[in-house]
């Protein structure tokens, strides 16, 4: 049975926030993803861990892109980490792997943020 959608939030450092996404990411939960990320990552860099994403619909990709663009217009940025196979195929199809900052592990993403 598919894991239901839920978000796990963490703030491992004062200027870093991690949001781990689990389950289906689609139109039903795009708004919740945006609201949670805006809330936990105020004045923080954000790592989105996609390891638990079992399916990502177009609306889910759209919400991720809206989030990345929104952060880019501030002094903070977003990195994606541990892209699940379900997410990877869509991200590659749209050539977003060439555009977005993607790391193989969450710790690598956090390290990259700290080095920024």
């Amino acid at each position: 049975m598919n894991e239901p959608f839920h978000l796990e939030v963490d703030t491992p450092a004062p200027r870093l926030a991690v949001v781990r996404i689990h389950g289906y990411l689609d139109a039903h939960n795009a708004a919740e993803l945006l609201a949670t990320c805006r809330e936990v990552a105020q004045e923080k860099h954000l790592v989105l861990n996609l390891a638990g994403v079992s399916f990502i619909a177009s609306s889910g990709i759209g919400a991720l892109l809206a989030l990345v663009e929104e952060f880019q217009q501030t002094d903070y940025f977003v990195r994606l980490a541990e892209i699940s196979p379900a997410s990877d195929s869509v991200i590659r199809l749209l050539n977003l792997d060439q555009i977005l900052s993607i790391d193989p592990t969450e710790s690598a993403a956090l390290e990259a943020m700290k080095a920024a």
Partner: protein
Amino acid sequence: MSEPSRQPIPHGHESRASGAPPEGLAARREHSLNSLLELSRELKVSLDLHQTVDLLLFNLMGQFGTARAALWLFESAPAPRAVMIRCHGLQRAAAGSAIEAAEAALRRRMELELSPILCWALKDDLEAPVFHLVRQAGIALFAPLFAHRDLLGLLALGDRLDGEAYTPGDLKTLETALGMVGMSLLNARLYNRMLENNRQLRLTNERLREHDRLKTEFLSNVNHELRTPLAVVIGTMECLVEHGVADPAMRELLVSGLQKSHDLRGLIENLLVLSDATRGRLEFHIEPGDAGSLLESFHADRLAGVSEALRDFRYRPARDLPAARFDRQRLLQILDELVDNAVKFTPSGSSLELRARRHEQDEASWLAIELADNGPGIPPDRMDSIFRSFEQVDGSWTRKVGGLGVGLAFARGLAEGMNGKLLARSTPGSGSVFTILLPAA
């Protein structure tokens, strides 16, 4: 591992020609088809205007791989103009200015062609500075939103992040998606209008009941004014009948007059009983309760009307709201007044947010309920008078009681009647926040 660069996502004019291999094209087509299926499935379950627009924008952004999208709906009254409903990735102000400048030309072109138009194809339709404004805003294409043959709104998408151009196939897919959404948005607007009409009908009924109550109160006041002098008249006549008039004819007239006076007093007494029974004094039934669930259902009740007025309305409660002491009916009256006020004084396209949180003040715990808008705000010299304006204009307080388009003065009176407060703060140009403080239970 890629470096955490500040490198912006590319949104240039120079789009690469689509050079995907055949298997890539097949995968793209499958992705488009899945996107359309998702859109079609979700449209069936959403009748909320803003949710539907978010669904469309996120779906298209994910379908085409762009980080920028916005949608406007056309408002017919008071003057025809495009109202921005949602915007993602684009700078709101820049996109708004671009549409304002290009709207007339876009309408002309779209009503002729009924299909999406890439920006470069608009070069001849737009004056050079307007074309420049559109491109500066990061818009790559516009698409019309139709229901039947009525132009409902306008969609803008930014460049694809991978730099590839939108293909004729993409534009066809986009047209299909917008065809589905046009009907859905029309249904959502009609549905919202129906809900709002129902609410208005309910309010009209309440107002009629209030008129009836005021009529009874008026009668009650008149009765009291009549009863006192009538008691003097009856007493005097009884005195004359008993002791003062010897002439039988005069005495008969006096008795007849006295009888009629008694009848009149009986009539007045009956009216008094009736008006007392129906007189609505301002009573409070304060008890501890969960204001969160009340706010949630209030938001659900008012959402359709506020959306129909082309304003966004969200409810954002903090976690772990405290229980509070309040009168449910009175709190709903205050909230209705604040939302009506916000809709009246903010332009279309504005956002209203209903929030709730715990608040500590004056060594006491409160439940703070806030209604924030991003409208034009209240000038500082008006701040002191907004809660008094009703008194100044109408010269009476009681006429407002119970929902005759209750003013802010009345709303504050209700809050204070529940041992709470109603406060306001505002930044001209940025918006206003009205805060209801209710004692935590």
